[in-house]
């Protein structure tokens, strides 16, 4: 009996090692896939080991849960388009939070007599898990643009309500933990759960849809913390280690995003960004020079080196395959084609890399911002596809701009810039982009995919 338990605990140690090594292998594109598989194997081992624990004797609910969950999970994984990754990750985070919160509840229901510190941990797990769940649901809805307005929802007294809620949850926690076997304990924990659910909604609803990736990354971190907390409840090392790794990962990604947007985490989390924009009209000089696809073709045809800057608009119009085709015809024409990837291009960190990888564009053609900027002066044409904020030179030049200080891809330093977008519409930050008015800029208006297709046709008809 004791020996089995020891053995199974050793399996947990091995699982933790696979998680750690998995993350390490994730550090390079050549080994990342193996890393993911290794980590999955470790997870499978942990699940099997858990089933062998002597106290696991009832299999109905367990088997049903596993079967249902696995099927839904697989459907999610294969049905979600690459453009929908942020939503999917968001939803999965919520489910992770839900699982942790339910584990806490199950423990409480099974063993109502708990020492005070266990009571505190149960309460904490319920709190983090529930906030993660409801917050993730709101984030998901905002990204899907369903049920909830994408814009920041602001109402008077917002902060006061949140603080009052938090105080109530805290009070409930004390009440609950002091005597978990009291007859009122179940109701109190239920109340805490409901309040936490409301709190999660209220925390996320004032944040604008475009800030959702930061929120999702933060919620990812919370789901890790919830797992960690539930590890303290059942005193399981593996949960703690894995939870801490995920927690760290979420926080690091959040910080990277905020840094690349030149905003503080607090600024994002307190919300309201994009709701009321500084009315001050920005001074932009110069005139707009629209071009037709045939003119753009002539410019591209003559270029020796082209740098493509993809942005959110490319994802919206699903133009990744078209971009790949254009790249091929240009390369056939003897032009060197590279992609410049801004860390927060798109709506999720690394979003553009995944999209372009989906279209079979090799990752060694994707260059990071810091590596491409020094070479920008000798680039013939910089082609901007559905990007806006990440190439806005105001970030470098205009101290009054909300983008001031954000690192950008310095497209304006290329000899010629071609901007592909539908209109003079603004980007996520909602500011004017002086790049569009520069002397060396040409605007190719239209949906990204359609414009790309037109360019490809020009190239093809020229050959034949």
């Amino acid at each position, binding site marked *: 009996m004791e020996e089995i338990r020891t053995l199974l605990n050793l399996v947990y140690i091995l699982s933790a090692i696979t*998680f750690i090594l*998995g*993350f*390490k292998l*994730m*550090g390079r*594109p050549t080994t*990342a*896939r193996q890393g*993911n598989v290794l*980590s999955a194997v470790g*997870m499978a081992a942990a699940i099997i080991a858990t089933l062998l624990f002597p*106290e696991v004797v*009832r*299999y109905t609910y*367990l088997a*049903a*849960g*596993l079967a249902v969950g696995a099927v*839904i*999970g697989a459907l999610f*994984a294969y049905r979600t388009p*690459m453009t929908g*990754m942020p939503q*999917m990750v968001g939803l999965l985070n919520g*489910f*992770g939070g839900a*699982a*942790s919160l339910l*584990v806490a509840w*199950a*423990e409480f229901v*099974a063993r109502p007599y708990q020492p005070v*510190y266990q009571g505190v941990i149960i309460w904490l797990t319920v709190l983090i898990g529930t906030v993660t769940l409801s917050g993730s649901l709101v984030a998901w809805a905002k990204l899907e643009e369903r049920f909830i307005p994408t814009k920041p929802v602001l109402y008077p007294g917002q902060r006061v309500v949140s603080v009052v809620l938090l105080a109530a949850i805290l009070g409930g926690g004390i009440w609950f933990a002091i005597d978990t076997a009291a007859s009122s304990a179940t109701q109190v924990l239920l109340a805490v759960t409901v309040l936490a659910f409301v709190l999660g909604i209220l925390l996320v609803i004032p944040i604008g849809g475009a800030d959702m990736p930061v929120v999702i990354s933060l919620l990812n971190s919370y*789901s890790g913390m*919830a*797992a960690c907390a539930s*590890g*303290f409840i*059942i*005193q*399981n*090392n*593996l*949960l*703690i280690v894995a939870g*801490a*790794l995920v927690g*760290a*990962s*979420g926080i690091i*990604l959040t910080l*990277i995003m905020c840094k690349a947007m030149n905003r503080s985490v607090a600024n994002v989390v307190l919300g309201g960004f994009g709701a009321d924009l500084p009315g001050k009209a920005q001074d932009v000089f110069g005139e707009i020079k629209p071009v037709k696809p045939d003119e753009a073709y002539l410019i591209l045809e003559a270029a020796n080196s082209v740098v493509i800057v993809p942005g959110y608009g490319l994802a919206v119009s699903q133009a990744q395959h078209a971009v790949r085709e254009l790249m091929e015809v240009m390369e056939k024409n003897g032009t060197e084609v590279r992609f410049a990837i801004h860390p927060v291009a798109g709506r*999720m960190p*690394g979003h553009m*890399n*995944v999209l372009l*990888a989906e279209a079979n564009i*090799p*990752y060694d053609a994707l260059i990071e911002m810091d590596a491409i900027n020094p070479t920008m002066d000798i680039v013939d044409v910089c082609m901007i596809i559905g990007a806006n904020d990440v190439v806005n030179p105001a970030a470098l030049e205009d101290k009054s701009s909300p983008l001031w200080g954000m690192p950008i891809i310095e497209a304006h330093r290329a000899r010629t810039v071609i901007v592909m977008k539908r209109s003079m519409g603004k980007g996520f930050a909602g500011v004017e982009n002086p790049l569009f008015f520069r002397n060396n800029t040409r605007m190719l208006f239209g949906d990204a995919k359609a414009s790309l297709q037109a360019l490809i046709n020009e190239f093809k008809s020229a050959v034949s």
Partner: protein
Amino acid sequence: MEVLIFLLFILVLAIFLGFEIISKVPSLLHTPLMSGSNAISGVTIVGALIAAGLGEGEDTAALIGGVAVAFAAINVVGGYLVTDRMLNMFKKKDK
């Protein structure tokens, strides 16, 4: 209480380790990193399985555990599969 100390120690070490390892992942792989760590956060399934399989106590506890298993399984299975799907697309220039 002694166990709690051990768990705290493990937590501290794991947090440090997490920051060291994750900060080495290049931005190229941040989306799969996010979905992959999502899958790992489904590790609560271990706790859920124990709750769902418990013989003693009320039936309710096991039922709640079963639901927890389902949620966690979505997380695990969905997370790993979608990460694999993404990583499978990352290719080096083969010419």
